[in-house]
């Protein structure tokens, strides 16, 4: 499938990487696309590095192997940059979206593996702390993904948050998550 987009999520246990990888698959499906969302299962501990994957395509996705050469990488926890090469296998000219307080240029200086990649940054911890009262970077990262790549539409994301999480979250958290996505969309920058 030539138009298939492969996405890898890097987070730590408890940051919602699995949830967002699967939720993005749902958003894409609701837009009439085909998708897969799945986590990489290893020892699951709060704080341990984990990966999640999403595939999106205009046609049925037949393959069920892991993602080795993603088009887009999202980093939920900036401290992961220091321990792993989050760009491993990332396609040439691929996109990296990072939850950080620093700029893309500052990060490039410290982490050579970011060279040649499109780097987008946002302070997702601050956004989620402001909007839902705690640092939960996963939903803001979705807003950043829409801004950087338009793989799905912003209204699809916010609409599906309303639909899918209205039973799970009380209204203030639900509204907060939607504001967090919209703010992330505004505040995500590239350099």
């Amino acid at each position, binding site marked *: 499938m030539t138009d298939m987009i492969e996405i890898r999520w890097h987070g730590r246990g408890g940051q919602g990487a699995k949830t967002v990888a*699967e939720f993005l698959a749902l958003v894409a499906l609701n837009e009439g696309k085909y998708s897969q969302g799945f986590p990489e299962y290893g020892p699951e501990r709060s704080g341990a590095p984990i990966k999640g994957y999403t595939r999106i395509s205009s046609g049925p996705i037949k393959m*069920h192997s892991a993602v080795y050469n993603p088009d887009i990488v999202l980093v939920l926890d900036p401290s992961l940059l220091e321990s792993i090469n989050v760009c491993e296998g990332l396609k040439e000219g691929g996109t990296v979206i990072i939850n950080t307080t620093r700029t893309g240029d500052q990060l490039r200086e410290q982490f050579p593996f970011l060279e040649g990649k499109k780097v987008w940054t946002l302070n997702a911890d601050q956004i989620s702390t402001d909007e839902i009262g705690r640092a939960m970077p996963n939903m803001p990262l979705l807003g950043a993904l829409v801004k950087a790549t338009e793989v799905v539409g912003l209204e699809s994301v916010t609409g599906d948050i309303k639909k899918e999480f209205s039973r799970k979250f009380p209204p203030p958290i639900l509204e907060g998550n939607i504001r967090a996505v919209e703010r992330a969309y505004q505040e995500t920058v590239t350099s």
Partner: protein
Amino acid sequence: MTNMRALTGNEAGAYAIKQIDPDVVPAYPITPQTELMQTFAQYVADGVVQTEMILVESEHSAMSAAVGASAAGARVMSATSANGLALMWEIVYIASSSRLPIVLAVVNRALSGPINIHCDHADSMGCRDAGWIQIYGENPQEVYDNMIQAVRIAENKNVLLPVMTTHDGFIISHTVERVDVLEDDQVKKFVGQYSPRYPLLDTAHPVTYGPLDLQDYYFEHKKQQAEAMKDAKKVILEVGAEYGKLSGRSYGFFDEYQTEDAEYIVIALGSTAGTAKAAVDEMRERGQKVGVIKLRVFRPFPAPELVKAISGAKAVAVLDRSEGFNAVAGPVFSEVRSALYRKSDIPVSAYVYGLGGRDITPEMISGVFADLKSGRLHEEEAFHLGLRE
């Protein structure tokens, strides 16, 4: 009329069981099955099904309760994986020999040891001679479709055998994909009201289950089981066609993908068949005549049909996700080669791959096709694909 959901393989299985609304579901948790029964338990707790769920203390008890409830006249379903299935072992044979149409979802996982929670087919392949029908699913959609069909196949009066529907642990059980589901009443109508033929609770017509059966009739009863497995073939096709009319998705013994003019064919079960299809798509774009057969029904084994489907090819590779430990190859290879005996000279190459969840990629399968094309065949002993050197 269908509607689309985003479901993991386990959620798709639980959704099918919800719509089937069986009388009794005994269950015990085990990774990677746990979420299937957990999701179904939520339906029970929410009161959206009438099912009596029995939370037992082991898989041996789960299958024992299934046997008891099924003999009593209930429609019974359950789910398990790996060591859970192994612990059911003794009762697995009693279910089939008592001709109890139980449907069991097996979420394929490697058998210990060493301990491994990831996918291979050692668990269900260990059961291949246990007298259960086995249907392997490729993706969450097929998990859903197969479980609904399994009920009809098992309960058919010419079959009356338990059915195992399988899907690959984690690879399918924990992957969210598009699943088109039927309406509740469509499923209800398709599976129909269960009318058991010889229920224990029908005290006006007393019957005995599980009696002593020695040299006098045990052999005849085994022959009847074997005959039922043969008769199941027709029923599997009928149910697959009828389900196709209802859902738009028809099912047979296997799925032939780009095989019509294929010179080289790969045979695989489960999710790997999908990965092989992706490899074939890519190779077809480069003009290579390659195809895939996804073997869906492993028990009964569709030998003549499979021989017909592959006999036009120049060579075939069989991908086994379990080790045969026979110093030759895996169980699917043995069946395929045996089916070809004196029917065709087509070479069959044996591969074992993916044990304990080792990943298989489209590139690896392209490599298998390249082996077939260049005559690097593994006919005497399986090649272990993806093994660390």
